[in-house]
């Protein structure tokens, strides 16, 4: 009797018994059976006598299923690891500065976190089962290499979970005195464990791209060598920043949606402010993200020329044009939100800053036009004949890294200045040195912009290594210098400034909420896109240069079909997040609607549903 028949005979009686529970249970079981098919050996592949190397699943295919689940897990994990960073920072600001609204905000962020945490773990578990079922040979190899770090990861997960529970459930109980200090310490621990929870699996993933294999030594020595591979730290830094960006923009989108739906003035003010903070956090990370991305690409290129060219010059290079478009929309969306804030939250400021906004917008669009101009253009035969090939003789120079680095740095500078403009709006300088201070800031900004452009143009006339090691680095340092100079100077100026117009929260138009949602969707799309790029750069290798992919899926999907999966992942993740947030806020809405007191609820609202600890305290 075949395994399928056995399975069928086991399942069918169960279905009959459970019919009374309704069709949903039957559907659930059928789905489970369908998911379990690979584990009973459907389409198992291996050598005639040897162990099974691959298993497949009908219709969707094992690779696509793993791709989707891995991407969703990564997106959820990005959110879950990014949010505690700024939730904790908000709590620290409230703790040291005494502003209670930051504590409320931190708590609201953490509520979203607790709801998403379980789902992340769930997808992680599904991913693990699928990997073990579909890729036994690969998983066996990776287990051999990384066994000690698997154990470490389990321990970290236990610590992280325990800390999160204490942090969330202890929020209200640890509000004052030394208990608050302890709570803040718990927040620190939460982030500490979260960081390691991120970097340990990063080692497994980066090992597949840039493996370091040693045949001698103990298990720990081999695992350590494999962990410390060339792209491990570049990915760690890149993902850490990207997680903050993702978390910030998703919290911003959450606030945007809530802002659009709430009725009371108080709620509108709160969610307007929360949207601002979410956008600020997203932008703050976004300013640093291109630097980290550049470092990662540099390391990949240096590690293996073939992989570098596949990504930046080969068939994956078109992804970077799409990437430019998505990042461009993010920059435009974030700046638009700042500008709307100036116009609507600070009445009377629009007239003063409209010209500046126009100049910034034009500059951003020019930069984006350069960033999005491909080196090889999409052209018909006739158009290519007129150009003399796929390169445009005049605009072709915009298609290489020197131009891209220059405009990305300029866009960072413009976005930073947008924020400074927002910060200064509605205030009048009173300090005696204000004129001089502003002149210095203006000079720094102009000179820095010129220096970035000069280095960018000069970059065409020096050897590539000089451009990569010195010019691009100098451009980044110049931008950092501007940020580090203008931020404290502005803060000093504003310390003594007179507020001429009070900030009016809750007055933003609906399109501000929509722009927050758009930013979140863009950053999710961006992560799915670059996830595909990083994974596809291994081409037909499971472990680059070490273990070849010998499954029927040992090919890179065409960009069109890959974009379908990316779009699906983005859509599904948005739906998932919307569901999680809906569940998380169910209790609040019930309370706001004047539902029965907590005393009447039999079991309280679970943490998964964002049940607030203060509600538990009352029971």
């Amino acid at each position, binding site marked *: 009797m075949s395994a399928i028949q056995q399975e069928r005979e086991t399942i069918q009686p169960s279905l009959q018994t459970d019919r009374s529970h309704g069709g949903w249970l039957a559907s659930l079981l059928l789905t489970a059976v369908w998911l379990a098919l690979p584990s009973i050996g459907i389409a198992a592949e291996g050598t005639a006598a040897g162990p099974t190397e691959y298993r497949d699943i009908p219709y969707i295919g094992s690779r696509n299923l793993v791709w989707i689940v891995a991407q969703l897990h990564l997106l959820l994990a990005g959110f879950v690891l990014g949010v505690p960073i700024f939730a904790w920072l908000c709590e620290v600001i409230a703790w040291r500065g005494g502003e209670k609204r930051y504590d409320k905000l931190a708590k609201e962020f953490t509520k979203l976190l607790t709801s998403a945490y379980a789902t992340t773990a769930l997808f992680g578990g599904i991913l693990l089962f699928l990997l073990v079922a579909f890729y036994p040979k690969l998983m066996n190899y990776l287990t051999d290499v990384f066994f000690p770090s698997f154990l470490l990861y389990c321990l970290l997960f236990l610590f992280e979970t325990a800390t999160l529970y204490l942090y969330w459930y202890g929020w209200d109980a640890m509000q004052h005195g030394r208990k608050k200090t302890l709570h803040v310490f718990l927040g620190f621990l939460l982030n500490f464990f979260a960081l390691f929870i991120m970097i340990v699996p990063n080692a497994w993933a980066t090992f597949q791209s840039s493996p370091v294999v040693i045949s001698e030594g103990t298990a720990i020595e081999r695992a350590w060598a494999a962990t410390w591979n060339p792209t491990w730290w570049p990915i760690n830094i890149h993902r850490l920043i990207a997680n903050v960006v993702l978390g910030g923009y998703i919290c911003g989108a959450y606030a945007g949606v809530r802002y659009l739906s709430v009725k009371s003035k108080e709620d509108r003010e709160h969610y307007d402010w929360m949207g601002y903070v979410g956008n600020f956090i997203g932008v703050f990370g976004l300013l640093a993200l291109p630097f980290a991305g550049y470092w990662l690409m540099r390391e990949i290129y240096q590690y293996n020329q073939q992989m570098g060219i*596949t990504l930046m010059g080969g068939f994956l290079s078109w992804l970077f044009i799409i990437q430019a478009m998505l990042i461009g929309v993010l920059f435009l969306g974030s700046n638009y939100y700042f500008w709307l804030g100036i116009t609507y939250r600070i009445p009377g400021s629009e007239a003063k800053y409209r010209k500046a*906004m126009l100049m910034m917008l034009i500059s951003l669009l020019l930069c984006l036009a350069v960033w999005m101009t491909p080196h090889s253009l999409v052209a*018909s035969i006739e158009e290519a004949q007129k150009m003399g090939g796929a390169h445009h003789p005049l605009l072709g120079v915009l298609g290489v890294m020197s131009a891209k680095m220059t405009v990305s740095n300029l866009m960072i500078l413009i976005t930073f200045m947008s924020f400074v403009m927002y910060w200064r709006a509605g205030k009048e300088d009173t300090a005696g040195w204000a004129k001089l201070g502003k002149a210095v800031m203006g000079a720094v900004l102009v000179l820095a912009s010129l220096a970035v452009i000069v280095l960018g143009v000069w970059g065409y006339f020096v050897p590539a*290594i000089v451009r990569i090691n010195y010019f691009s680095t100098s451009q980044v340092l110049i931008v950092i210098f501007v940020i580090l100079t203008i931020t404290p100077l502005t803060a000093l100026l504003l310390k003594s400034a007179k507020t001429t117009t009070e900030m009016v929260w809750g007055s933003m138009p609906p399109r501000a909420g929509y722009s927050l949602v758009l930013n979140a969707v863009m950053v999710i799309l961006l992560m799915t896109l670059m996830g595909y790029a990083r994974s596809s750069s291994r081409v037909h290798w499971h472990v680059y240069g070490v273990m070849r992919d010998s499954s029927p899926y040992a090919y890179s999907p065409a960009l069109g079909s890959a974009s379908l999966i990316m779009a699906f992942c983005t859509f599904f993740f948005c739906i998932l997040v919307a569901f999680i947030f809906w569940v998380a806020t169910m209790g609040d809405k019930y309370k706001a609607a004047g539902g029965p007191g907590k005393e009447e609820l039999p079991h309280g609202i679970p943490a998964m549903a964002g049940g607030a600890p203060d509600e538990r305290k009352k029971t």
Partner: protein
Amino acid sequence: MGALGKPIILMIVMYLFLKFVLPIIPGSAPLPSSLIFLYLILTASGIVIYETLSGESKDAFWGPIQRFLTGENIGGLQALRYGVLILFPLLVGWQTYGSTATSDLPPTESRTIHPAPPGEYTGLVNPVPKTPENIMQGKGFYAAFCSPCHGGNFDGKGPAARGYIPAPANFADPTTIAMLQESYLFWRIKKGGVGLPIEGAPWKSAMPRWELELPDEWIWKIIMGEYDGAHQSPRTWE
């Protein structure tokens, strides 16, 4: 139409600039429609962003469009409104048909200029010492074998260049060989157009497979001569 006039004029001016002015700048060429479309989308996005920054500008910009589309107090423009409402979907349908229907024209290309080299070529180091004699010798080989297409000035304008689409690479352009390592050039010269991998489709390269004619040492010398003659340096990591 007051507040709408400026954006419409701006879009038209931008289109005319990209279509007719930019191509006549010395050293330029007509832009492909994909690039014109991209720049026009950016312009339109800029207009929408700017015009919706405040309530007043949004109403001034969007109000006439909304009134026109809903037919609210538009008087004699009603016929035009119906025309737009009928023609616009037809235009979209025509565009969709045009982009999917079978055509005798070759498809639009998204050629990968620099496909990844095979693994055995990555990391190769030029074994020939970089001496003035070797560079001179390389330039001599270049003059004999490469310059008919790539030009005596290394600018892709050799006497035979006009016969090829795409044109032979211009080595003096800092966006060509200066971006690549010597091992990459070695692979491309040795294997030629026929040695391009799948991702190099549609394999439009008339580059001969020089491994049939030239020993490896000559190829390495040619590479040195090319970089020196084009005043470029190969990509290195030191």
